[in-house]
């Protein structure tokens, strides 16, 4: 996977995110974000600095095309990226990921991948919740929205990962 491959994947994730989030609209208790999968499955030897730049770019583009305030998704994606390698190191076995391996479902196995995904998404969703209400005041009140979205997004991302990347990635 070269640089052009990464950019094509980036654009596909942006398009998927925009179409899904405008098609699936069940009211304010559910927001859709599938773009974290792109950031979470960057090869394990990517440097954290370039990953932060990827996250910022992804968040900004998604924010620009979504019908909301600029900066919310990029702020959340940056926070998630800061923690994602730490979580990956926690769930994977030692020495597993020194190389260019993509930390996906096939490489990590179901349980490890799901725990990696849920932990990272939880950080991402908490950050979105804080950025949206610009502080802690509505945090408890927004808890149902966060948890429902976490559940649905995990499900959608698992389907995408299983359907598109699980078998064809060789």
């Amino acid at each position, binding site marked *: 996977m070269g640089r052009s491959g990464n950019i094509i994947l980036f654009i596909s994730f942006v398009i998927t995110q*925009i*179409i899904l*989030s*405008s*098609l*699936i*609209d*069940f*009211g*304010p*208790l*559910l*927001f*859709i974000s599938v773009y974290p999968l792109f950031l979470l499955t960057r090869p394990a030897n990517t440097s*954290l*600095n370039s990953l*932060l*730049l990827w*996250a*910022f770019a992804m*968040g*900004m583009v998604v*924010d*620009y*095309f*979504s*019908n*909301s*305030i*600029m*900066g*919310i998704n*990029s*702020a959340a994606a*940056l*926070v998630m990226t*800061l923690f994602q390698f730490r979580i990956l190191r926690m769930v994977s076995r030692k020495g597993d990921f020194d190389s260019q391996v993509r930390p996906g479902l096939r490489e990590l196995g179901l349980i490890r991948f799901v725990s990696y995904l849920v932990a990272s998404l939880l950080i991402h969703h908490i950050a979105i919740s804080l*950025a*949206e*209400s*610009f502080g802690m005041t*509505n945090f408890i*009140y*927004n808890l*149902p*929205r966060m948890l429902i979205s976490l559940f649905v997004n995990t499900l959608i991302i698992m389907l995408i990962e299983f359907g598109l990347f699980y078998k064809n990635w060789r």
Partner: protein
Amino acid sequence: MWGKSPVIKFLITLLLFLTLEVISISFISNESVFQQAKISGVVVKLRSVMDGFTSGVKYYFGLQDVNDMLVKENLRLLKENERLKTRLSPEASLSSNTSLSADYAYIPAKIIANSTNKMHNYIILNKGSSHGVKKDMGVISSVGVVGVVSAVSERYSYVISFLNINQSVSAKISTSGAFGPMVWEGRRSDYALLKEIPFHIDFMVGDTVVTSGFSTLFPPDIPLGTVRKSSVTKGSYHEIQVKLFQNFNSLHYVNIVVNNNKDELDFIQRESNGSVR
């Protein structure tokens, strides 16, 4: 040299993270700067394309012409109603030299993009400055308040939806006339909260809530919803949950409110503020 020492490497990463995060947060707090950019270029085109793409799912094509006709009809009736109201009002009949122009005019518009699944929802309309739309005009439908115009380009306008936790509308209970701000609480798209209704006011479940007309944005007496339940806050106020008539998911056509007296009212307000100081 650089990046060899783990401490320096860590500091560089931290600095990069903080810089990008600060940029993001400054974007959040300066949203109004970017609204203009959002409707001037790619977004609206992309949205139109996508609207065409998704409308097969969301929208029944055959009804479009009928809807157009109904919108025009509705507008004509609104205008007539407004004119008749002015003629009926006692102030108008007192002074014979007052012209009988209506207080409000309406510009019909179609929604290009809308959402209900965020805390800060926005709507893009297909009418802009070339059609006479200006910043800070109200947007209504026949069954409620839709929002307030926040940025205008030549052909499109960007509207802060009522489904936005920073937005509020002045509303009153039609039976008693008690008024207060109505806000959206961010839980469900068909409920809102009417706040600061004094404790001694009597009302019943099912009473209609309408716009108060105390702001220059919206005409009075647009039906908004019905009283569902209430609770007492701070010992002296009712906080009333209102079931909205408006269904934001199936909203396609709206009217932009042009207040013909807005300049005059704003001028008076400025004058009085000046004299107080």
